[in-house]
């Protein structure tokens, strides 16, 4: 047998530019597996230095068009922590709802538009829509994603870059009638969310995926009161349990040649996974009753260390997000305007929110004039890149019997299962497999 080289020059259906190079020896051993990201760095951390702290959340939401709100809210909360600002219960609820909307939008997009075409053998969702059997699902999926976008419009006046959320609260609040309309639509989409989870299970039930399990450390926020979204302690399946502001001491980043994204490890340990699978594994008991019930119905058991099951975890989180959004809207009732006021103070603060694809970390130091001295940003994909490489090293030897084309597709699917956002983490997708012989 000759050496195999698998080279995916550009991995489609993920955000940003990256590639995968693999060299497999004649004996079937992986000599090299390297996930390379060449999306150019954008130097946000550098140009934030010297800006006023209340501008930071405004600027960082421009990092990404898929997760603007997690970046924004992590930065808001980091500034609030640095200056000791307390916010109202209403503000916390509005932020919670804003992120749930982001999850709905992003998860619906991922399950139906990015992942499903792989599993069903279509080039893209357009091909799926051409099949009369799948067309109603695509139509419903569009409505689901639309609902996520509309939640952002109602809460912030805009689909992507919010216009109302600031340090200290909101400069405008939605009226109760608009929220109740959203509530109706959420109720209307609930059955489809359940169907989505069942579909995700069907897609991944092929035996080829069952073996692809690798126990690695899963990391997510954990809250005492709810399925953590906007804050909590940072915990892991290997016993990590720290306050969110301690993340810079525990989650370490290393530069790697050939990759514009840094490789992340946990202090004293190894690579780790963040995202929906980690959240479901760590916080299963806090999912809504129906989300737990659907997981049981499809036979999903935690902890699950198969990265391909991330799509199922997204389905489960869609059900939870719908339930939790309805609950949050009920708690909000008729929101009242509250003036977001605070006093500028020197300080240092770090905060984490759960973006659809995992923990999104922001923080830094602010001087007594409210000017940023230092700012740290770590997007979720940056946490996952090293873990993806480790998965590939483990899984590819089990898939050696496949043709180069099939093997390449499985590698791409693995990478896509993390729903990587390479422009955020500064990296990409392109698979090269080289078999030596």
């Amino acid at each position, binding site marked *: 047998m000759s050496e195999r080289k698998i080279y995916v020059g550009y991995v*489609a259906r993920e955000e940003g530019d990256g590639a995968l190079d693999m060299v497999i020896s004649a004996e079937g051993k992986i000599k090299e597996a390297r996930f390379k990201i060449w999306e150019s760095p954008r130097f946000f951390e550098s140009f934030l230095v010297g800006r006023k702290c209340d501008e930071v959340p405004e600027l960082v939401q421009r990092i990404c068009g898929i997760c603007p709100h997690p970046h924004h809210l992590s930065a808001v909360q980091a500034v609030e922590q640095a200056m000791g600002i307390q916010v109202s219960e209403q503000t916390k609820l509005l932020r919670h709802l804003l992120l749930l909307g982001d999850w709905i939008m992003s998860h619906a*997009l991922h399950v139906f538009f990015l992942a499903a075409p792989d599993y069903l053998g279509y080039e*893209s969702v*357009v091909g799926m829509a051409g099949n009369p059997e799948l067309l109603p699902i695509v139509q419903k999926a569009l409505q689901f994603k639309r609902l996520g976008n509309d939640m952002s419009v109602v809460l912030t006046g805009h689909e992507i870059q919010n216009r109302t959320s600031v340090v200290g609260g909101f400069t405008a609040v939605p009226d109760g009638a608009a929220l109740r309309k959203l509530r109706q639509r959420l109720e209307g989409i609930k059955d489809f969310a359940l169907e989505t989870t069942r579909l995700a299970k069907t897609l991944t039930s092929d035996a080829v995926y069952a073996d692809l399990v690798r126990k690695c450390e899963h990391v997510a926020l954990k809250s005492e009161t709810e399925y953590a979204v906007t804050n909590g302690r940072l915990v892991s399946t290997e016993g990590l349990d720290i306050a969110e502001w301690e993340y810079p001491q525990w989650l370490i980043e290393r530069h790697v040649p050939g990759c514009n994204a840094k490789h992340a490890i946990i202090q004293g340990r190894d690579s780790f996974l963040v995202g929906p699978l980690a959240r479901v594994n760590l916080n299963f008991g806090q999912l809504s009753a129906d989300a737990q019930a659907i997981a049981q119905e499809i036979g999903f058991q935690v902890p699950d260390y198969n990265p391909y099951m991330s799509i199922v975890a997204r389905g489960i989180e869609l059900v939870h997000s719908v339930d939790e959004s309805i609950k949050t809207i009920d708690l909000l009732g008729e929101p009242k305007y509250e003036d977001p006021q605070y006093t500028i103070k020197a300080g240092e603060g770090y905060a984490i929110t759960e973006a659809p694809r995992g923990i999104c970390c922001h923080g830094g130091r602010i001087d007594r004039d409210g000017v940023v001295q230092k700012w740290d940003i770590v997007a979720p994909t940056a946490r996952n890149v090293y873990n993806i490489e480790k998965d590939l090293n483990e899984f590819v030897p089990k898939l050696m019997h496949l043709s180069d084309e099939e093997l390449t597709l499985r590698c791409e699917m693995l990478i896509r299962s993390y729903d990587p956002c390479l422009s955020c983490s500064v990296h990409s997708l392109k698979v090269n497999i080289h078999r030596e012989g």
Partner: protein
Amino acid sequence: MRQLVLGCGNLFAADDAIGLWVVRYLKEQLNPELNSEIVLIEAGTPGLNLLDFWEAGDRVILVDAVQSGLPVGTVQRFEFKDLATRGKLVGDAHGLGILDALELARLTGNLPTSLMIIGIEIVNEKPFQVGLSPAVEKAIIPAAEAVLEELKLKELSNQQFLKFKYA
């Protein structure tokens, strides 16, 4: 009937932004008080969200850059329904291109009542550049006129609808 003019393109990719410049020009020219049924939108690079701009009964005019081999600056008009259906498509990254999004709209029954495309031939779509090539810049006014004709404003008195005459 509501008429939507959607200018598409990336402001930071040189000529690709021509759709935006045409809409900006129209915004200066049209008197909004007299044209409540006409909506001018700088749609940018909406991808899948393109489908959310219109409702079933709307008439849509989409202005975008094209590369078809004609002389740079050429303004073309075509109806979406006259375009050949697309073959194989791969959605890049998280977004779909305009034609992919329109194809999805067609398949899912989300097309507006009529969809006219005004295409302007471009030459340079390099990233991180703001500004149009001279030949493309010269096409702003002819393209805007093509939009006005489609809006049937030309048949009415220009003075009624335009704040001032353009060059």
